[in-house]
């Protein structure tokens, strides 16, 4: 019995000693070393991870850890001090800014990329485009059957991110509340916990409709063109339509810090806004932001 315990303890020491050599830039004592913690938007999480990986390669000694959880999660984390940088795909609400001030800082947001929110359906769905009004009606429950918008005679399976998601709030403000500021998501909307579940469900369910950032769109989805109103052209989201504003459901993506960024964090954000960081933005199907340094 004692032997087993000894072996167990030996394994523990072995595990902890061999981990120090792994992972990019894990030594905290190397020069220009440091830790940056990034949390927040799931829309931005792949982008943020790609930045982190690239940055760690270019700047050995710096560790950048990235998590998702939603813009709401990131904002809370920044307020509570459990993160250095918050990724948010929506702007801070007044109450959240108040909370931050109560904790002694002013949240400073910098737009680092532009994102189009794609509205997708299953490839089998014959519908090609929708107006903003139709989209709002679908998401408030006023339109419940595909045939009302030119599709098959079947109930619409309406999918959405949950309320921790910045995209959820952005879509609500931009689309659902476009005409009626008091509108809320309808009673039949299905709030799935994560973007991937939504992506999977749309890909396999012919009656589903969903929205998410362009970065999550795959070959298994069909992207709808969006018309501002019945007389406009249907616009699909891509680099140019997002940049020039013709795609109506686009928004900036932000990183937020406690006060003005300084030191290690400032270097990181500057790098993101620089050509290296923005190149990664394009590679991941987001749109580089105009405020490049």
């Amino acid at each position, binding site marked *: 019995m004692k032997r087993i315990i000894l072996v167990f303890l030996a394994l523990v020491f072995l595990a902890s000693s061999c981990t120090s050599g792994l992972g990019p830039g894990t030594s905290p004592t190397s020069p220009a070393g440091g830790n940056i913690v990034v949390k927040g938007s799931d829309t931005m999480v792949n982008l943020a991870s790609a930045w982190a990986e690239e940055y760690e390669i270019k700047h050995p000694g710096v560790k950048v850890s990235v998590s998702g*959880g*939603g813009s*709401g*999660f990131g*904002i*809370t984390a920044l*307020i*509570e001090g459990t993160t250095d940088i918050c990724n948010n795909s929506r702007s801070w609400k007044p109450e*959240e800014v108040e*909370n931050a001030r109560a904790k002694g800082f002013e949240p400073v947001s910098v737009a680092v990329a532009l994102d189009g929110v794609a509205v997708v359906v299953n490839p089998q769905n014959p519908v090609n485009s929708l107006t903003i009004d139709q989209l709002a009606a679908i998401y408030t429950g006023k339109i419940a059957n595909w045939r009302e918008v030119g599709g098959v005679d*079947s*109930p619409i*399976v309406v999918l959405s991110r*949950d*309320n*921790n998601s910045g995209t959820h*709030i952005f879509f609500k403000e931009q689309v659902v509340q476009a005409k009626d500021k008091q509108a*809320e*998501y309808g*009673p*039949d*909307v*299905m*709030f*799935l*916990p994560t973007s991937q*579940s939504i992506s*999977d*469900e749309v890909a*396999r*369910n012919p*009656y*589903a409709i969903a929205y998410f950032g362009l970065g999550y769109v795959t070959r298994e989805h069909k992207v709808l063109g969006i018309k501002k109103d019945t007389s406009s052209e249907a616009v699909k989201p891509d680099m140019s339509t997002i940049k020039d504003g013709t795609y109506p459901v686009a928004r900036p993506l932000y990183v937020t810090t406690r006060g003005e960024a300084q030191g290690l964090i400032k270097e990181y954000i500057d790098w993101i806004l620089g050509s290296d960081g923005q190149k990664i933005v394009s590679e991941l199907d987001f749109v580089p932001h105009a405020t490049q340094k």
Partner: protein
Amino acid sequence: MRTRKCGKTFLSEGHSPKRRVGEKVIEALIRFSGWITLIVLGLIMILLFREGLPIFGYTDPVSFLFGTTWLPVSSPPVFGILPFVIGSLMITLVALVIAVPIGIGTAAFISEIAPTGLKELLKPIIEILAGFPSIVLGFIGFILLAPLVQSVFHLSTGLNGLTAGIMLSLICLPTIISISEDALSSVPSEYKEASYALGATRWQTIRKVLLPAASPGVVASIMLGMGRAIGETMTVLMISGGRLSIPTNITDPMSALTARIAIEINNASFRGLQFQALFAMGIVLFLITLVVNIVADLVLEKQRRRLRA
């Protein structure tokens, strides 16, 4: 097993004052530790109430429990949890409808019909099922079961209460099976022998003698299984569909109390209204499972006393 040095007499070690003090310290520690489970339970209750009760200053308990709208991040926020209570109950009901007959049947099979060799094989399989992490079951439910349910029942989506209930029954089954099986095998063999002596078949004996005698244990197992089902989080999170309105049908997508808490707790600002409301939901969950467990324990105690007599 190595035998320890039992032969070494303790008299030679003696009862020195130093030893007596050391022993007193250890014994005090032991006496304190005995209470640890009660202490932890108490702490859980205190903290849940501490963080959750404040919400009732914003929303009164009736509107909270019976309100049908849940808008935690709107202005102004609205907190009504009835749809989730109903969702949890519906999913649990589906799980029990499936798990109870199959579970008791399996318990009877293992206890009375299976030959010893098969028994030794079946019990580990049940324990393997018990050990399946709930996230794995949720994953399997999402990838495999949901599309199946969707096509078999011609639904618009497979992410609904029925699918969640089916996967949940897999979680209840080990509890129901093992406790019922224990109850059945602890029925004194005199009962069985008397029944055979009267000319009954094995099935008649099971049905009319053993099951009734074991019924407190079986009922307790169902209650404990129900408690597990109500408390399950990850499986339900992934496959129940996430609709916030009151479900009218088990094939509707719905939300459960547990899943709601899990999704929203990480982004609720600490000690804000949403945070308090989620803790209040925790209180509701805690009280439900408390009641279920106490009743189950009372029922089990009844069986223990009955068998002792």
